[in-house]
């Protein structure tokens, strides 16, 4: 199963994520979840970024928070709403909201 997970808040969701089993796992950071892609605590990026290589962040939600592409971890791809729709239909057959 290919599972796309929308992460909408900046909190420790690692335990929940660890219980998700998928052949392909993707994280789409939206709303306050964009901080996973941009912030470092004690010099360390969010541990969620180590869980998969399929990482996306919504550009509009970055801009709303005064962030730009240059603030985003190099492992994360910046995407638009249209890109998110394509990911949903082309890359992930199941979707979850955390």
């Amino acid at each position, binding site marked *: 199963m290919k599972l796309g997970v929308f992460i909408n808040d900046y909190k420790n969701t690692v335990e929940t994520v660890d219980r998700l089993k998928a052949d392909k796992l993707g994280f789409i950071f939206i*709303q306050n979840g964009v901080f996973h892609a941009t912030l470092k605590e004690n010099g360390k990026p969010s541990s969620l970024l180590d869980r998969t290589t399929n990482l996306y962040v919504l550009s509009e939600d970055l801009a709303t928070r005064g962030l730009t592409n240059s603030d985003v971890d190099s492992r994360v791809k910046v995407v*638009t709403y*249209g890109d998110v*729709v394509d990911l*949903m*239909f082309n890359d992930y057959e199941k979707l979850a*909201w955390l």
Partner: protein
Amino acid sequence: MGTLTMGCFSSLVGSKSLDFALKLAKAAADKGHKVNFWLSGNATVVGKAHQKHLKDYSTGEKPVMELLEKGVEICECEACALARGIQKPDAIPGIQWNAMHWYLAKIYSSDRVLHIGGE
């Protein structure tokens, strides 16, 4: 093209999740996908007509009407709306009113489902 069904169980007008869901629905409809949109809980407030569009204040009526014009099917949880004092004549024309079975039926006939939980 596929069919996407979304259920929004989030907060009032101005909520981050509801705002996201409205924009995602528009993006999917713009790409030619069929979109079904279930409004539950406090999200039913977005379906009320005659919302005042205040400066710098988020409202949902305009994006909802745009979605309806694009052919998006939007349905309010009737019980949720009535519990919040919203009667059917108060709703934006074109919005459907039904019970949870509408959402379940749409889910079973969709290619993709995004169930957005509460905030």
